């Protein structure tokens, strides 16, 4: 840190007030762990399901997603995955991107992309599960 120029009249505490912790760091850390714990069974279940679907045609895939439990599992997987991804990408961006505008922009872009991908995946699962696809 650079020392304050001597002409500055405000105390170091005065300058720091309002610039410190937004009191949200713990929430980021906790949700990263909550989604991580959720993803352990969800990811293992998904890999097992994909193995079962190896070489499956469209009808078999549609039948599988049409069952309640796979549809629920896929939606939970999408939510946990993209929430976890958004938090993880934010940490990486904040570590390596030093320009303030670029950093804020990239974190925002990561969040928007993760939200859009999660919504797209959930809508696709619901479309298949509710039988709207041909």
């Amino acid at each position, binding site marked *: 840190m650079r020392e304050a120029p001597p002409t500055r009249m405000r105390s170091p505490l005065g300058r720091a007030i309002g610039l410190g912790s937004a009191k949200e760091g713990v929430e980021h850390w906790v949700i990263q762990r909550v989604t991580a714990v959720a993803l352990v069974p969800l990811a293992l279940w998904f890999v097992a399901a*994909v*193995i079962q679907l190896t070489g499956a045609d469209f009808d078999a895939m549609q039948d599988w997603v049409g069952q309640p439990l796979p549809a629920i599992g896929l939606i939970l997987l999408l939510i946990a995955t*993209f929430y976890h991804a958004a938090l993880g990408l934010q940490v990486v961006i904040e570590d390596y991107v030093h320009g303030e505008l670029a950093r804020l922009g990239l974190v925002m872009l990561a969040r928007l992309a993760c939200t859009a991908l999660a919504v797209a995946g959930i809508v*696709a*699962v619901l479309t298949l599960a509710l039988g709207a*696809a041909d």
Partner: protein
Amino acid sequence: MKSAERPLSPHLQIYRWQLTSVMSILHRAAGLALCAGSILLVVWLVAAAMGPEAYRGVQNFLGSGIGVALLLGWTVALFYHLCNGIRHLTWDTGHALDLRSTYSGGWLVIAATVVLTAAAWAAGIWHWVS
């Protein structure tokens, strides 16, 4: 920031590679790879929702050389990030933080990644041919 006159601490390339630091970097790299892989998951689901033709297109891509290589890389990244993530969660509880445990846990994660990846692909190939 003015820092040129101060002695600098040695940078990354000075240090000998260690299991712990390499695994830490790989955890992050695997996480980024999984972000790309999760795009593939959404493409697969959206294609299926669009109908048989779009789904067949994605399945053909996944069955191609590039597709299989991507899926293999995705499997390795997933199992590595999963196993090493459990290692991190263990650390979060305050356990296994001593030097010996970080190394034995690290080798355990690598072994589990290899075994789980091999098991998943063996099961997938067995399911494919039968």
